[in-house]
């Protein structure tokens, strides 16, 4: 579903990704861990076609980047730590706007389904700036799944959420994965990642330093494995 070979990304003279190889099968849920500055967000932005690779081959859903970026964007849903929503529009208006941009068929019906799924039907006509951070993040997920993407990218989706909102978000993440979507999520939360993902990759110094199957991971062992991987 996602195939990345020898990916290099530099900003000026500074290399962020240094020949990264990454492969994800359809239906996999991969958690990408790593310290600040490891290149997690840069990598996700390249997969999302928001940034161009400096070198290397990137294929998402069978389409090459950056050449077939519009086709990649059609099969991709992205959730960032920022909500990517308009505060002066209501939840319904935000979804309607993005639905029109994506050309979602039977949009009004789909809006109702998505608002129901994220539990915001009752507050659909409230302005987004009046929402709590947790509600905004749920709506952000609603925006990302509106066009029924095959692949979902989550960039530190739990940032700024309290315990209750984080648990609610976990529920939505499980729901998204249960529908057979391929998921790549960056995170700093080791235990949560091991719990949610089918595979845990650790990104350090611009390459994948270690990779573990999520199901076989002993949660207590993960911090030590993580420290070992980032020390190289």
């Amino acid at each position, binding site marked *: 579903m996602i*195939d990345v070979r020898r990916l290099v990304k530099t900003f000026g003279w500074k290399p962020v990704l240094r020949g990264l190889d990454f492969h994800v099968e359809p239906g996999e849920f991969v958690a990408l861990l790593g310290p600040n500055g490891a290149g997690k967000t840069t990598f996700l*932005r390249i997969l*999302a*076609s*928001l*940034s*161009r690779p400096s070198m290397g081959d990137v*294929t998402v*859903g*069978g*389409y*090459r980047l950056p050449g*077939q970026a*519009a*086709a990649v*964007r*059609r*099969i*991709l849903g*992205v959730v*960032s730590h*920022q*909500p*990517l*929503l*308009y*505060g*002066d*529009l209501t939840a319904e*208006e935000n979804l309607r*706007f*993005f639905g*029109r*941009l*994506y*050309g979602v068929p039977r949009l009004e019906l789909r809006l109702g389904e998505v608002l129901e799924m994220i539990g915001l039907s009752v507050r659909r006509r409230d*302005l987004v700036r009046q929402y709590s951070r947790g509600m905004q993040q749920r709506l952000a997920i609603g*925006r990302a799944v509106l066009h029924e993407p095959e692949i979902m990218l989550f960039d530190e989706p739990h940032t700024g959420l309290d315990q209750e909102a984080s648990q609610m978000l976990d529920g939505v993440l499980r729901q998204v994965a249960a529908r057979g979507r391929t998921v790549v999520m960056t995170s700093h939360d080791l235990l949560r990642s091991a719990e949610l993902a089918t595979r845990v990759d650790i990104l350090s110094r611009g390459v994948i330093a270690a990779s573990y199957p999520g199901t076989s991971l002993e949660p207590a062992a993960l911090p030590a494995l993580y420290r070992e991987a980032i020390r190289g």
Partner: protein
Amino acid sequence: MVERTAALPLRRGGFGRAVAAVVWKDLAAEFRSRELIGAMLVFALLVVLIFNFALELDIRTRSTVTAGVLWVTFAFAGTLGLNRSMASEKDRGCLDGLLLAPVDRSAIYFGKVVANLAFMLIVEAIVLPVYSLLYNAPLFVPGLLGVIFLGSLGYVGVGTLLASMAVQARTRDVLLPILLFPVILPVLLAAVKASEGFLQGLPTADILPWVNLLLVYDVVFLTVAWMVYDYVVEE
């Protein structure tokens, strides 16, 4: 993995639908917050008032400076609006949300141009009668209104492109006018000269070269923006 060779076909009318969606979103958000039009309008009226009291012109001199003062007012107020229009996209990461849509990114550009042009024309429609009253100048000349439209289109066309570049920088508020005014100089010059011609009742043959310059500028810069917008907004 077998590589796909063709992109998924976009639905017919995807470009127009995306432009309309961006315009609708900008108008809906602005009519709810009134941040952008409010700031542009207050600023424009203040500039008009300041010029009125600072210049203390006699009737004959007024007729020669009216066009210049008018366009300086529009240009300054327009910069404020362009900055705000793109900053609101950047602040909550909304620009990324737009760029993630599977549409030709120039549709986003044209949507922003149409919305910004609408905001600028609304401000101009309110400023013109006030200016007319203060300066005792008959501004509702059909030719002048046409020049204001063409000048505003050129200004917003270039301004939206440069604001999309400047918004990536930390110093975007300072950067936009520095980038914009040198590029916009031909539009301002042609707009001032053509406006002056209509206000002084000059023969059409004398005004036409300036109107033609405005038309050519608009077409050239809208075309250039359409071609380069994808590269301008990508990292």
